[in-house]
């Protein structure tokens, strides 16, 4: 009876915690509430399972302590730029846990699988967990810039083949009469195929599609948790799993909308190809120096920065903060405008700017300012490309046509910081450079910003 109340409190706490996490003022409380609820539920699970002997309890406490310490160490050491990698690793561990649980239930604990419900739940735990495990590992390696086989047609073919194999095994299991003796083999086949599927699902997916992929893999682990909850008859796991799954699915769809891409397209590894429509168009590019940019800024009243992943790569966040402080001194407002898919996971840019102490009141969402972009005297584009390409709005031939963009071109002056004239991720020609009000500042973003700040000090 007491345990039921503990479960109830934990469940309500989990839901309320996640709700708070959607509100900037209460997000921290929400996270702690969710963590406390999980601890409560954990104690309830241990008590409800019953006293198994002191060795078991010591082993359990030891494992939980070691796991917590490892988790704490990783999370306190990670650089904010590497956050997507850490989330991927954590997600991979959750997925691996699901596969181990499912196989251990049948092979280790020897639970006889004599009905379709139990069998189906075990199969789905292994399927979602396995895909999430290897998928997240490959995503981690990709994000970390490790050497992986180049995306190839064969990966997509294998992914589809494995998906068909998985579907065939599941169909076979449900079509055949229940047979507890062959069940372990069926489950093992599912686990192996799911692990392989995770790899080939993730391999062809491009860097800019990472926010979609990470959200999706998160959702998969959530569903695996839900399935495990059904397996162990644990309501907290069921509700927790659903909340995670729902979060993941919603973010996945939001990211897809922000890129004007279909989930199917992303998963099929459809890489936007520019070759067919625009090959080598000569662009007339006006370059600008850091000194000229500084004087442009000095004469501006409203300035905006559009940061992209390139900013994170060159670690220019602190220079952005320094620039903002500098301009504040001359009563120039500096805003940061963030595209929903900038960075390698949803909201990544916001975290990086927060780490550099940039007040979040000055960080704006694309939709909040897009209709008033002409009020900005100068817009600095740092390490972003496709998200400011006007071709997405006015060139129906363009591969990125229809993708919502930040209308930087509407500002009085646009300065794009670029390392070289290399094209954006999509390889699409950026027609922003053809505009009269756009100039390019070549060089490393961090160094350019430092040079601008030095020059501003002199003015």
């Amino acid at each position, binding site marked *: 009876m007491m345990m*039921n109340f503990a479960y109830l409190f934990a469940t309500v706490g989990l839901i309320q915690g*996640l*709700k708070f996490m959607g509100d900037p003022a209460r997000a*921290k409380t929400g*996270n702690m509430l*969710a963590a406390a609820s*999980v601890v409560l*539920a954990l104690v309830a*699970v*241990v008590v*409800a399972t*019953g006293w*198994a002997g002191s060795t*078991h309890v010591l*082993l*359990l406490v030891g*494992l939980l302590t070691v*796991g*917590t310490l490892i*988790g*704490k160490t*990783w*999370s*306190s050491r*990670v650089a*904010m730029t590497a*956050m997507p990698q850490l*989330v991927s690793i954590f*997600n991979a*561990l*959750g997925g691996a*846990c699901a596969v*181990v*649980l499912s196989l*251990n239930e049948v092979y*280790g604990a020897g639970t006889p699988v004599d009905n379709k419900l139990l069998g189906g739940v075990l199969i789905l735990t292994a399927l979602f967990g396995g895909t999430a495990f290897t998928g997240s590992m490959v995503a981690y390696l990709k994000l970390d810039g490790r050497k992986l086989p180049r995306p190839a047609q064969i990966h997509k073919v294998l992914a589809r083949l494995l998906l068909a194999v998985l579907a065939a095994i599941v169909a076979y299991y449900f079509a055949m009469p229940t047979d507890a003796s062959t069940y372990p083999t069926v489950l093992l086949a599912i686990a192996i195929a799911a692990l392989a599927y995770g790899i080939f699902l993730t391999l062809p997916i491009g860097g800019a599609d990472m926010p979609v992929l990470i*959200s999706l893999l998160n959702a998969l*682990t*959530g569903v*695996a948790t*839900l399935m495990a909850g059904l397996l*162990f*008859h644990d*309501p*907290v796991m069921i*509700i*927790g799993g*659903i*909340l*995670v799954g729902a*979060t993941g699915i919603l*973010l996945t769809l939001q990211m897809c909308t922000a890129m004007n891409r279909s989930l199917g397209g992303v998963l099929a590894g459809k890489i936007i190809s520019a070759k067919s429509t625009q090959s080598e168009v000569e662009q007339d590019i006006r370059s600008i120096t850091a000194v000229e940019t500084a004087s442009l800024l000095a004469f501006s009243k409203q300035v905006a920065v559009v940061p992209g992943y390139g900013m994170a790569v060159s670690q220019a966040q602190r220079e952005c903060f320094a620039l903002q402080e500098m301009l504040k001194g001359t009563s120039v407002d500096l805003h940061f405008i963030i595209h929903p898919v900038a960075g390698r*996971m949803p*909201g990544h840019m*916001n*975290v990086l700017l*927060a780490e550099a*102490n*940039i*007040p979040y009141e000055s960080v704006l969402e694309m939709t909040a300012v897009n209709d008033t972009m002409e009020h900005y005297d100068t817009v600095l584009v740092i390490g972003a490309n496709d998200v400011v390409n006007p071709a997405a709005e006015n060139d129906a031939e363009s591969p990125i046509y229809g993708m919502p963009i930040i209308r930087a071109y509407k500002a009085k002056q646009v300065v794009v910081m670029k390392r070289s004239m290399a094209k954006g991720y999509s390889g699409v020609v950026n027609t922003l450079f053809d505009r009269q009000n756009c100039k390019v500042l070549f060089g490393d973003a961090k160094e350019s910003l430092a040079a601008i700040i030095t020059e501003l000090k002199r003015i």
Partner: protein
Amino acid sequence: MDFSYTITAIDGVFILALSLLLGFEVIKNIPAVLHTPLMSGSNAISGIILFGGIVQLLNTPLDHVWTLAAASLAVLLGSINLAGGFFVTHRMLSMFSVKRKPAKGRKA
């Protein structure tokens, strides 16, 4: 005292359907600024899959070494996911709140 807790299949389906609706309701309209902490936080919550490992571990006799080892592995993996996720989310959210203090504490 009776510590047993079981849910029947139909209970499960009810919980499933209702919490699915609830899940979408709870997290829709979340501002982009919180997307990353939300994701790492929800990722942490999915670590509760380790409860399954706990149940397996506590129900396995000590002489079933491999079963015990597998359950232990599940508990370890899950607990890293769970604890690490909550800690890193806390770290991120602390960054968001740090500079709200000077804004509030500014002398007018």
